[in-house]
């Protein structure tokens, strides 16, 4: 079977752990096209470990995400800084001809819709606003000096740099989207306060967090990490698409009050509602363009999928949110 990577994994892991490793179970988790994730139960010189091996996929590598070596460095730095990121075990330059890195496989629920809607996660939902604020506060203290490869830096304010990138993405769609332009125009006309730049996780939202009854267990998916304004991260889980059909502004689970207060208390920043609104709108604009771009992956034949195809039509939901946010104004 093409999927049976077990012997290759065992050999690579044995080198990494400096002794024989037996994989009792190795399964490819369905999903990622550009990068694979292998769930591996391994007997190692350090004992029995539940591992997750992130490995390059066979397909195209997207230029806007970190390489696996760099992602490994970011996750390691986050874990060392006390963020609830998985512990890493090392980078592997060659697992069956592709690069990979190894980290612990954390338990917990990761499916956003379940976390936001299922009764058994009510206790977690009560804790998440403050826990999410605490994790972001820690993430934004990770020293970036040791991570020189992080993209996104520049002389202009972070908001200006992001807007420039979004225009490039809109133009590469090669079709007009007045509602998205309307959003970007508002952003240009209403520059926010700038905060000292930090390591931005880049995809911090429910759906990329692992959760148990105790609340937040893990922060995953670090491949979009970059240098930017901390409020970009703070506002991303407010974006309508990450509320899974619920109305509450913070990821469908709560108002922003406790979340914002806790973040400001933990960081000593005084992020105001106007800045948060700016980046919430930015997040929606980014996701509107992202949805259309994802649909192009299907249309171009690069990555045929009914999920990706549907995003082309669901972008209208995000456009409506953009126009509605602007109409109602900062709050």
């Amino acid at each position: 079977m093409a999927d049976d990577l077990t012997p290759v994994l065992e050999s690579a892991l044995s080198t990494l752990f400096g002794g024989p490793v037996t994989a009792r179970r190795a399964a490819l988790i369905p999903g990622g096209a550009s990068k694979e994730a292998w769930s591996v139960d391994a007997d190692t010189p350090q004992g029995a470990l539940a591992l997750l091996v992130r490995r390059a996929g066979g397909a195209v590598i997207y230029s806007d995400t970190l390489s696996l070596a760099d992602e490994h460095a970011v996750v390691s730095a986050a874990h060392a800084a006390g963020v609830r990121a998985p512990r890493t075990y090392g980078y592997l330059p060659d697992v069956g001809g592709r690069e990979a890195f190894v980290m612990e496989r954390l338990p917990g629920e990761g499916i956003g819709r379940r976390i936001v809607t299922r009764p058994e996660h009510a206790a977690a939902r009560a804790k998440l606003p403050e826990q999410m604020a605490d994790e972001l506060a820690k993430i934004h203290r990770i020293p970036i000096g040791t991570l020189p490869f992080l993209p996104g830096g520049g002389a202009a304010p972070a908001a200006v740099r992001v807007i420039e990138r979004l225009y490039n993405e809109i133009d590469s769609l090669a079709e007009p989207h007045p509602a998205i332009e309307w959003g970007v125009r508002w952003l240009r006309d209403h520059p926010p306060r700038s905060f000292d730049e930090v390591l931005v996780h880049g995809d911090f939202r429910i759906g990329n967090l692992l959760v148990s009854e105790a609340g937040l267990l893990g922060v995953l998916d670090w491949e979009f990490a970059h240098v930017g304004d901390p409020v970009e991260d703070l506002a991303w889980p407010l974006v309508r698409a990450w509320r899974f059909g619920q109305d509450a502004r913070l990821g469908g689970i709560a108002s922003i009050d406790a979340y914002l207060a806790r973040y400001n208390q933990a960081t000593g920043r005084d992020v105001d509602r106007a800045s948060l609104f700016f980046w919430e709108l930015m997040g929606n604009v980014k996701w509107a363009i992202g949805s259309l771009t994802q649909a192009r992956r299907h249309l171009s034949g690069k990555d045929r999928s009914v999920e990706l195809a549907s995003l082309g039509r669901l972008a209208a939901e995000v456009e409506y949110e953009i126009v509605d946010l602007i109409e109602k104004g900062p709050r």
Partner: protein
Amino acid sequence: MQDRPTQRELVEAAREFFEREILPTVTDPRLRFRTLVALNALGIAEREMFAGDVFVDEELRGLRALLGGSEMPFPESREAKEGEAWTLRKVLAEKIREGTAPEGTAAFLKASIGWKLGVASPRTLGRYG
């Protein structure tokens, strides 16, 4: 001229089959999710076929009211309507980027996205007050 079922009735028949006979047998959560996404895609196609030219006509009239051209005869074919709407949408997008959006742009945008949602995601509109 094709015999019945119509295009829309065919898609509807296929959707009903997947919904009633296939979906209940799908237990793998990921496969189930993708099946629901596929069913939703068929639903979008059905609604678009049902709507016919209605939304295209609305959008083109709105764009002409905003940017001019209302005095010209209204195009007859779907292709011509969509072609003109695409061109005017491009003009509007450029004006917005330059900061010279005409009066009434916000209201037009909200209405035109509403027409798209009427096809793609009718439930979304209900969430807004």
